[in-house]
Every structure is written in structure tokens, then in C-alpha cells.
């Protein structure tokens, strides 16, 4: 019984939250890695793209709620998501046309593109704040829990409750669907294959008649869609705040680099690695341990390695360690 309690506590406070967070990071890192693979620069505006896409989704959600539309137990934001993805895609294409294309034609060094993306980041940040303000917004509706902590306790007779929120399940399901779709697209469609070819060897791809502008266009559309999905899922799971999304840039980049920049499988693995480490290192294990050891050995401290305020330090440390010992990432990424 004690052992079961420990497992339930661990699942409730570490495994479940970390899995949904990992799925969100993986989607974000996929977007970063996609842009890196095709356009070959680290897109600093990605966090703010997520924020902008989410802001679109929130505005549409409010509109739908105002009209009385709802999805029953599921959050209304799911209905808004496709429209938001479309809008974000348009923004991405417009940004590419107005900003990035010029530098691409001039074949500037990647670091200039990074600085350009910093400018885009500022503008997008401004637009997001302009649209929706800087406050924290909760826009999740529908059924809150799939498994309720109290009911779980009653039905199983355990001391520990297990809560499974709708948004957590939704996050994982959506992420799996999106990733499956993405890999199908990359591996089985003509455009997807040409994108992979372009990412592997630009010159050869051009030689075999692949239209670079088309590849770039799809890359932006996919990155926009991934960013919006990741942003909406994160917002449903926690809450929306423009600055938090900007701060997500660090764990997202860490995920992408740890997995190997330009490698989609690596981005997913990196996302989960970062998420699990972040949650595990900042969780106070006192409760779990006290179920497992005899009463006399019960720890006096919280058994927390780091306070949650330092969660960024976790992704940062993993990033540094991986970079020092395996600079191309755990899965083979590009090193330009």
C-alpha cells in the first residue's frame, strides 16, 4: 500500500505534469529545429510567435464563447486552434516576405539572421501586447478533470490522490497527432521529401530542381503551426502570459540543441529530457520518500534539489553538459 501511494504521488506530481510539459516543449523545439534545418539560423522570435498564435486563439475563443459555441467537455480553444494556425501562418509568410527574404537573397551569415529575428521578436512582442495586453489569462473551459483527486482516493482507498486534468491528456494526444502528421508529411509527401533534401544538402537539392522559395514557405507555415499548437496547449495547461512565453525560449532552445539542431526526432527527445529533468529536480521528494522508508528514517528536509525558481538552471545545465561532451546533440544534428 505504501509503495502504491509513493507511485501515485510520483505520478501525480512528477510524471503527469512533466509529460504534458515535455510534449509542449517538444512541439516548440520542433518549430525551432524546422527553421534551423531549412533556413539555418536560430529563430529568437519563436517564443513570441507562440505568444502571438496563442493570442489569436484566445481572441477567437472569446468570440466563440460569446456566440455560445462550445465543445462540451473539451476546451473551446480547440475549435479556435485551426483558425489561429491559419492566421499565424499568414503572419509568418508576411514576415518572411517583408523581412527575411531580403537577407536570404543576400546570403548573409546566420548570426545576422539571428539579430534580424531579434527585431522580429520585438515587433511580435509589441503586437501581442497590443492585441491582448500583458496580464495573465486563463482561457481553458470545459471539464477540468478526467480523474479527480478525491474520487480517485475514494475508489482506490489510497491516501494519495491522483488528478488527471483534461488539458494534460489533451496536450499529449494533440502532440502525438501533430507529430505523427508532421513525420508523415516529411517522409511520405513530395514537399516533405524535398524539405528534407533541402535541409541535408542545399546545393544538391537546388540542382535537382527543388524550388527553395516553396520549401522555405512550407517551413514557415509548419513552424507557425507548431508554435501556435505548442502555445495554445501550454496556455490551456497553465495560463497565458506574454512574458512567460518569451521565457520559454530557453528550455525550447535547450531541447532543440540537446536533441541535435535540425533533427526532428532529437527535438522531441530533447523536449521530454528537459521537461522530466526540470520537474524532477525542482520537486520536493519528501512525500514520496516518506512512503517508502520506515518512519524513523523520514527525511527532515523537503528533499528538493533546487527551488522551482531555478528551473531555468536545469535546462541550462543540461544544455551546457551536452554541448561540452557532444556538441552536435544526442541525436546527430547539424553543426554549421
Amino acid at each position: 500500500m505504501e509503495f502504491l501511494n509513493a507511485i501515485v504521488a510520483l505520478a501525480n506530481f512528477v510524471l503527469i505534469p512533466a509529460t504534458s510539459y515535455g510534449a509542449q516543449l517538444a512541439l516548440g523545439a520542433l518549430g525551432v529545429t524546422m527553421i534551423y534545418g531549412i533556413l539555418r539560423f536560430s529563430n529568437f522570435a519563436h517564443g513570441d510567435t507562440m505568444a502571438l498564435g496563442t493570442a489569436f486563439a484566445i481572441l477567437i475563443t472569446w468570440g466563440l464563447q460569446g456566440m455560445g459555441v462550445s465543445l462540451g467537455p473539451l476546451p473551446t480553444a480547440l475549435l479556435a486552434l485551426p483558425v489561429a494556425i491559419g492566421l499565424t501562418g499568414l503572419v509568418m509568410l508576411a514576415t518572411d516576405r517583408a523581412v527575411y527574404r531580403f537577407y536570404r537573397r543576400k546570403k548573409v551569415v546566420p548570426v545576422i539572421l539571428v539579430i534580424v529575428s531579434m527585431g522580429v521578436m520585438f515587433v511580435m512582442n509589441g503586437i501581442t501586447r497590443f492585441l491582448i495586453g500583458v496580464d495573465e489569462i486563463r482561457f481553458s473551459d470545459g471539464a477540468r478533470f478526467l480523474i479527480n483527486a478525491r474520487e480517485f482516493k475514494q475508489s482506490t482507498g489510497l491516501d494519495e490522490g491522483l488528478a488527471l486534468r483534461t488539458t494534460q491528456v489533451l496536450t499529449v494526444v494533440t502532440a502525438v497527432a501533430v507529430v505523427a502528421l508532421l513525420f508523415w508529411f516529411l517522409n511520405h509527401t513530395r514537399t516533405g521529401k524535398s524539405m528534407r533534401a533541402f535541409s541535408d544538402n542545399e546545393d544538391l537539392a537546388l540542382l535537382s530542381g527543388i524550388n527553395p522559395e516553396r520549401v522555405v514557405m512550407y517551413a514557415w507555415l509548419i513552424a507557425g503551426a507548431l508554435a501556435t499548437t505548442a502555445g495554445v496547449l501550454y496556455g490551456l495547461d497553465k495560463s497565458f502570459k506574454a512574458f512567460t512565453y518569451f521565457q520559454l525560449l530557453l528550455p525550447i532552445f535547450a531541447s532543440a540543441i540537446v536533441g541535435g539542431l535540425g533533427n526532428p526526432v532529437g527535438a522531441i527527445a530533447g523536449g521530454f529530457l528537459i521537461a522530466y529533468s526540470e520537474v524532477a529536480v525542482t520537486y520536493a521528494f519528501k512525500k514520496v520518500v516518506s512512503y517508502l522508508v520506515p518512519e524513523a528514517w523520514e527525511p527532515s528536509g523537503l528533499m528538493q534539489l533546487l527551488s522551482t525558481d531555478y528551473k531555468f538552471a536545469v535546462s541550462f545545465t543540461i544544455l551546457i553538459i551536452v554541448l561540452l561532451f557532444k556538441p552536435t546533440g544526442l541525436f546527430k544534428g547539424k553543426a554549421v
Partner: protein
Amino acid sequence: MRNIALFAVIGLLIVAEGFTGSWNTALGILNMGLISAILALGVNMQWGYAGLFNVGVVGFVALGGLAPVLISTPPTEGAMAAGGWRILLALIVGVASIGLAIAINRRAAGKMRVLGILAVLIGGFFLYRAIFDPAVEAVEAINPARAGNIGGLDLPVLLSWPIGGVFAAAAAWVIGKTALGLRSDYLAIATLGIGEIIVAIMKNEDWLARGVKNVINIPRPVPYEVDLQADPGFVERAAGLGMDPVTASTIFVKILYGCLFLAVLLILIWLTEKALNSPWGRMMRAIRDNEVAAEAMGKDVTLRHLQVFILGSAVCGMAGAMIVTLDSQLTPGTYHPLRFTFLIWVMVIVGGSGNNWGAVLGGMLIWYLWVKVEPWGQAVMDLVTSGLADGSALKAHLQASTAHMRLMTMGLVLLLVLRFAPRGLIPEK
């Protein structure tokens, strides 16, 4: 000629602010503009001379801001005895175990290496926490409403400016040692991370500088306004100039600050110009423009990068100490990356990367814009919404959102400059 004209324009803008607004705000813009210029100089050293992409400026500024607290505030009674020494010991244990791990990494090989490193790091961490946690608790228990930190050394505040630079330089050494051998993008991400972490430490380690409870009343290098107003000699001279003592005292204090900042800026410009035009400066540019060729000529690229990274970060740290001295308070909650990292980058790019005068110009100009865009945006919005009915939701939303105009304007300025004048207002020679 053109450069002098550009600086004259800035001067005119500030003087115009003095005539149309108040001299107090004009001097306020000037003072912060001077500090911004110093920050831009620091970032320009890294980016302009060496092509290093540092996006953790906010961390170095925050770390520099710690110096005035640790140097010039009075020590907290009994804090060192209660736990201060033990905290110091814990930090030494932490550093020593990392050092030992690095030594094992260099010397040992194979399975022993991994096991040794893990054992040392894990053991060191728990030992560190065992000494650190009770000590912190003891320090934070001392008069938590007013102190709760270890306090400072009660030394003159001006001394904290170079010390702030030293703090930032030390952090830069650590980060540079680990990340500089890697690609440019990775350095960017690594500095982004270290910036966030330093700010998080400043916010949460209450024993150090009270965290988000802020430290106020940091001693000033210049007289206090109230003392000046109580000084009959000063009041008489103010009256002689036809000013009331309150305004005169605030302006006088601001001018004193301005002189101090200007002195630091001039020294830095003199030094950086000397450095840039010396063999060292030519070598740095050679490395920036073609690393492979410079390496073939026998230049140690990584070492030079480390050198300039440390120097630039030290300048940023010094500017951080100056900001805290100007405000007389340390408020870790205000260290925002958009304001202290990315805005500085806009200054450098707009001014002209690689050119010291350009960085100074960019710093002052962009700071002026940063301050003024909000009232201008308000005025534009008033004009735009004047046709809308009072109390309409759209009008209220538009009016409220002028506060966010700044970021968008700065982004647009950056994008426009990068596109149409990529070498900045004062290009590198």
C-alpha cells in the same frame, strides 16, 4: 563632420526637452543615456570587435548592480557571525567540488572519470547544501523586515563601480570558458541562459541582497537634495540664479551624477579607441573577419575571444553598478531582458557596430527614443481616437495599448536599420 552633427542632434533633442518639458526630465534622460552609452560600448566590444553574440547582458548588468549593495551599504549587525562565514565556506565547498570535477575530467580516463566526476559533484552538492541551508536561514532570520541579508562593507559607493565590473568579469570568465569554443548560436543560447539564471539568483537569494524585497537607501556619491535645501549657501546661490531651492537642488544633483557618468564614459572611450587602434585591435578585427586565417597566423582565437568577452562584460557590469547608484536602490524585479539585453543590442546596431562613437551615439539616441516614444504614441493615439465616442471599448483598448508602442517601435527601428543602413549611423572605418 557628419558624426559631430549627429551628436549635436542628440544634444539639441535633450536641450529641446529641457525647454519644452522640464530640465529635470532632460537631465534624467541624459544621465541614463550616458549609462546606456557605456552599456552599448561594452556590447560593442564583444560584437563589434570580435563578433561574439552575447544575449545575456541583463545578467551582467544585474550582477554589477549587486556591487553597490555589497560594497557600500552598512553591514548587518551579527549577520557574519550568525551565518555569513558559513555561507562563504559553503560557496568555497561548491566551487572546490566543481574544480575537483574539472581536474578529474582532465586527468582520469575511462570509467573512473565518469564515476569520479559524478561522485565529487553529487557529494559536493550535498555537502554544500548541508552547510549552506542552515546558514542562510540564520542570516535571513536577522531583522527580516529591514535587513535579513549579510549587508555590505560600508565602503565608498564609487568603489563599487569597478567592483561591479569585476563581478561581471568573473561570471564572464566562467561562461566564456565553457561556451566560447562552441558555435556562435550556442554562445547566444548559453548567455541567454546565464542571464536568466543570474537574475533568478538575485530575485531569490534573500541573504545576498534581500531578493525582491529590494535594497533601498544605498549611499550616494553626491549630496542629498534635502541637505542642499537646508544649506543656506546653496539656497542663496540658487536664488541668485532665480531658481527655487527644490528645483535647483534636484538639478544640481543630476548634473553631478551626469559629470561622474561622463567622466567614466570619456575614460572608457579613450581606452577603447586606444585599444581598437592598437595592434591588439587590428588582431581582434582580423579574428572577427576571418577566424581561420587568424588562427593560421598563430593567433589563439579562443583566448582572444575570452579576453574580449570578459572585458565587454566587465564594462556592462560597471554600468549596472552605476544604474543602481543612480537609483539608490537595487530592485531585482526590474531586470527585464527586453530592456537590458535586447534594447542594448538595438543601440549597438543602430549606432554602428564596431565603432565606439557609434555605440555611444546609439546608446543615447535609442534611450531618448525609448523614453519619448510613449508620450508620442499617446499623442498619436489621442489624435487617431479623437473621432471615436468617449467610453467606447475600442477607444479604451487603443488608449491602454500605447504603453506597448515602445517594443514595436524599437523592433521596427532595428529592422529598418538592418535593412537600409546595416552598418549603422556611424559605420566602422
